[in-house]
C-alpha cells in the first residue's frame, strides 16, 4: 500500500472539513430539487429504526403504567367519587342517545337515506415522535403487509388525530392536526357554519375563515366537513375555546400529547392528498 507523506496527509486532513461543508450545501440543493428522494431516505431510516422503538414501547409502556398506578393509588377516593358522578351522567346520556338513535333509524328508513359506506381501518401503535422541532407528527408501526396510503385519516378513541403523509414498508407518518402545515375543513356543529382548522405547532389549532354572522361559540363542538372530499363528514375534532386575545381556538378531542394506539381509516377519499404531495404537484406545474 502506498502511504502518503506526512505533509500530504496533513493537507488532506485540512481539506476534509471544507469538503464536508460543500457536501452539506450539495445536500441542501438535492433536498430542494428532489423531495421524493429525501422523503424515501427519511422513511427508509425510520423503517430501519422502527423495530428498536417497537421493542422499547413495551417496557416504556409498563413503566408508564406502573407510575400511573402508583399515582392513582393516592387519589383513589376522589377518583372513585368522580367516576360515580360521571357514570350517573353517562347513564342519563346513554338513554338519550338510545332514544335518538332509534328515532334516527326511523327517520332514515322513512327518507330512504343512502347510508355512508362502512370504512375499513387498521390499528397501529405510535412508536416515535416524527415531527422534529418544527413539525407535529408521529410515527406508526404498522407491520410489513399493510395497505396504507397517503391521505388516509387517523383517529384515536376520542377524535381526529391527523392524516398520513408518508408511508414506508413498516411505518407510516401521521401529520397531526396541530402541525402548522395542517388545514382541515370543519363544521361548527350548532350553527352548521363552515370553517378551516389551522394548526400552529402549538397545542391548540386555530379556527379561520368562518362565515360572517356565525361567530364560533365558546364550547361549541367542531366536526369535520366533507367539503373537498378530503375528510368524511362528522368526525369529532374538538371544542371551541376563546384564548386571552379573543381568537377562537379548538381544543382537540384526541389526546394528541399522549398518543398510543391510533386507528387509520380508509374512507376511499381522494379529494386531497397530504400537504407535501400537493406542494410538489403545485411546484411541478410552474
Amino acid at each position, binding site marked *: 500500500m502506498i502511504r502518503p507523506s506526512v505533509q500530504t496527509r496533513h493537507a488532506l486532513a485540512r481539506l*476534509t*472539513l471544507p*469538503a*464536508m*461543508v460543500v*457536501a*452539506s*450545501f*450539495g*445536500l*441542501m*440543493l*438535492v*433536498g*430542494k430539487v428532489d423531495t421524493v428522494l*429525501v422523503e424515501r*431516505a*427519511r422513511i427508509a*431510516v*425510520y423503517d430501519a*429504526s422502527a423495530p*428498536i*422503538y417497537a421493542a*422499547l*414501547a413495551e417496557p*416504556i409502556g409498563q413503566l*408508564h403504567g406502573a407510575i400511573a398506578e402508583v399515582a392513582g393509588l393516592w387519589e383513589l377516593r376522589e377518583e372513585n367519587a368522580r367516576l360515580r358522578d360521571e357514570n350517573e351522567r353517562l347513564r342519563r346520556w346513554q338513554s338519550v342517545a338510545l332514544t335518538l338513535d332509534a328515532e334516527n333509524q326511523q327517520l332514515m328508513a322513512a327518507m330512504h337515506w343512502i347510508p355512508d359506506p362502512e370504512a375499513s381501518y387498521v390499528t397501529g401503535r*405510535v*412508536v*416515535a*415522535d*416524527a*415531527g*422534529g*422541532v*418544527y*413539525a407535529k*407528527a408521529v410515527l406508526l408501526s404498522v407491520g410489513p403487509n399493510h395497505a396504507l396510503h397517503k391521505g388516509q385519516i387517523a383517529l384515536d378513541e376520542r377524535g381526529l388525530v391527523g392524516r398520513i403523509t408518508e408511508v414506508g414498508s413498516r411505518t407510516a407518518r401521521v401529520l397531526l392536526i396541530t402541525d*402548522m402545515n395542517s388545514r382541515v375543513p370543519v363544521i361548527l356543529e350548532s350553527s352548521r357554519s363552515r370553517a378551516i382548522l389551522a394548526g*400552529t*405547532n402549538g397545542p391548540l389549532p386555530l379556527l379561520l375563515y368562518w362565515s360572517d354572522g356565525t361567530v364560533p361559540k365558546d364550547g361549541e363542538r367542531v366536526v369535520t366537513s366533507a367539503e373537498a372530499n378530503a375528510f368524511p363528514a362528522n368526525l369529532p375534532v374538538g371544542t371551541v375555546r376563546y384564548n386571552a386575545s379573543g381568537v377562537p381556538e379548538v381544543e382537540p378531542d384526541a389526546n394528541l*400529547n*399522549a398518543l398510543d394506539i391510533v386507528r387509520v381509516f380508509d374512507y376511499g377519499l381522494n379529494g386531497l392528498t397530504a400537504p407535501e404531495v400537493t406542494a410538489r404537484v403545485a411546484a411541478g406545474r410552474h
Partner: protein
Amino acid sequence: MALSERVPGVRPRLTVGRRLDIVWRHAFPGTTSFLLMLLSLAPFGLWGQAALLPTVALTCVWFWSLFRPAAMSPPIVFLIGVLLDLLGFLPPGVGALTMLTTFGIAQRLRRFLSRQRFIVIWLIFTAVACGIAAMNWTLVSLLTFSLLPPGPVLFQVGLAAAMYPAVAVPLTLAHRSIADPDQA
C-alpha cells in the same frame, strides 16, 4: 493508532480480542452518538421531547470534537448531521452544516478550552448552542420560505444548556475508561 502502539515498551500481544477492543474504543464516540440520537426519539411520552434529538446530537458532537477529535472526524460529524436531518425532519443539509459548524468551533477553541474548568466549557457550550439554534432556524426558514415560530428554538437552547452536564458527565467517565484507546 493508540499512543501505546507508538511508544516502545512491554505490552500484551495483539490478539483478535485486543484488536476488537481497540477498534471499539475508536468507534465509541461515533457509535454512541448515533445510538443516543436514535434513543432520544423513543416513545417516552415526555413533554417537548422533539427538542431532545438536536440537543443530543449537538452535545455529542461538541463533547467529542473537544476531547477526542481523532474519533470525531468531519465525515463522522457529517453523517451525524445527515441522520439529524433525516430523523428530525429538517430540510437535508441543515443538520449536517450546523453539526460541522459546531465541530469547527470546537476545533478552534480546543487549545483554550482544554485548560478551562467544566463550568467555563458549559457556559461556552451554551453560547455555541444559541448560535447553532439561530443558524438552524434561519436556514430552515430560508429553505422552507416561511417564518417559523421562534419558541421551539429558545426551548432547544434552554434544554441544551440544562442537559449538558447530564450528557457530558457520563461521556467524560466513558472517555477516561471504556472509550480510552490507551487502556486497550
